[in-house]
């Protein structure tokens, strides 16, 4: 007799006091001072809770967080290649569906969260992410967007805004504006092309309550969901480490982040 697959219902919060105190992303990593993506990881892990499986496609949050015999992840976590975060998530979700249906795993379906950087989500990892959303796997794809390939030394990515200065797009005499192309619109791209997808949102590390609620909404939907989380990178954007939240706040209403993304929306 096939067992029914039960999913978790994550509660939405109203204020900072309701943010869970349990940490799933604990000290022991080696990210830079004022790291936006690390803050993003911490908040998403709090939102998803203990019954979760996290996937880390290669990126700065893989290289700076895990080192052999040392880990900041208190939840089950696996590395995936930068190309295949979505594919691995699909496999894990399908495996848990079968294990629960056959009664080999007792408990509710874990929250499966892919924590991909902008390269692992919208550039190199786009094919696998698109496949996961197309097939309708019950997983959350989070893109922590620091607008560059920060792991390898701040190279341009499709999320780097027009005029961005990176090591691949240095402003000079020939090209004074630095980066000449406009960034991709990640949320629109995933919404527009994936009929099985029911939830997409954009969030910022400057607004943790909003971020946690959007992550939880995404997890509550039965099917693929996408959350684009803007996460400033002091090292890459060359601002003082203590100003991460300030920069994130300034980015959200006025800057390039707003121009290329639509507000949170469920279809």
């Amino acid at each position, binding site marked *: 007799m096939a067992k029914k697959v039960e999913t978790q219902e994550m509660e939405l919060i109203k204020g900072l006091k309701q943010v869970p105190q349990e940490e799933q992303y604990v000290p022991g990593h080696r990210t830079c001072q004022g790291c936006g993506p690390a803050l993003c990881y911490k908040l998403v892990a709090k939102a998803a809770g*203990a*019954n*979760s*499986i996290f996937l880390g496609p290669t990126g700065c949050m*893989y*290289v700076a967080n*895990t*080192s*052999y*015999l*040392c*880990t900041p*992840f*208190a*939840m*089950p*976590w*696996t*590395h*995936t290649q930068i190309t295949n975060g979505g594919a691995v998530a699909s496999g*894990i979700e399908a495996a848990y569906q079968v294990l629960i249906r056959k009664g080999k*795993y007792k*408990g509710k379906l*874990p929250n499966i969260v892919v924590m991909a950087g902008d390269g692992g989500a919208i550039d190199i990892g786009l094919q696998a992410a698109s496949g996961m959303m197309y097939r309708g796997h019950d997983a959350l794809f989070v893109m922590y967007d620091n607008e560059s390939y920060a792991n390898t030394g701040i190279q341009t990515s499709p999320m780097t805004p027009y005029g961005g200065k990176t090591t691949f797009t240095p402003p000079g005499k020939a090209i004074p504006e630095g980066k000449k192309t406009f960034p991709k619109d990640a949320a629109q791209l995933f919404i527009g092309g994936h009929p099985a997808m029911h939830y997409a949102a954009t969030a910022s590390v400057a607004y943790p309550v909003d971020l946690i609620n959007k992550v939880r909404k995404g997890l509550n939907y039965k099917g693929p969901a996408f959350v684009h989380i803007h996460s400033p990178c002091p090292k890459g954007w060359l601002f003082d480490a203590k100003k991460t939240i300030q920069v994130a706040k300034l980015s959200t209403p006025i800057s390039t982040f707003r121009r290329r993304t639509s507000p949170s929306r469920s279809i």
Partner: protein
Amino acid sequence: MDEFLPPYKSHLPLDPTKPSNHGPQIYADQGPAIDLQRGQAMLDTPKVVEQAIADYNKIMGRNYSPWVEEYKTDGADYVFFLQGGHCKTARFAVDHLRKKGAKVGLVKLRFMRPFPTEKVAEVLSKFKAVGTVESSTSYGGAMKGGNIIHEVRAACYDLPNRPVVTSFMSGLGGEVVELETFYNIAKILDTAAKKGKVAQYVYWAGFDNDV
């Protein structure tokens, strides 16, 4: 078959009730120590291989040798040395050539890694010439031919009377190694065994005139 190979059980699943982390980053200074461990683990694998083959033979009622299998090598002067499915063709070739009086045999290699150095040296010491039939080339290698010839020559290096070894490239990219090819190889090996040296280290079947 289920008795030999029971259903797979993952010993370290991604399970929220027993959290584990998979695939962390290995830094440059951690690499050599990990490689040393892997190398030492590989040194321990022969015991496991022998046990697994013994279990398989017992359960399935077979008599497979774990490392090298000999076919009609009694009194043979020269042998084909190869791996995998082409051995079936080689056995037909050996049967046919034996009927015609050729002193030929077949030695089948079952494991490239861990390479059974002592076993290969022991078996090949009986022959005058060995022809490795290879389906994968190693561009610019020491013997200009395939990969197995390097291993075989290295394994035979310490023998007092080592056989002459040459390689035959055939069946690359999944092509069939034809019976005719084995007959031609046997002719070359026959000459090599009589002269005690090889004319070429590598012959490309279908491209060299003799093969």
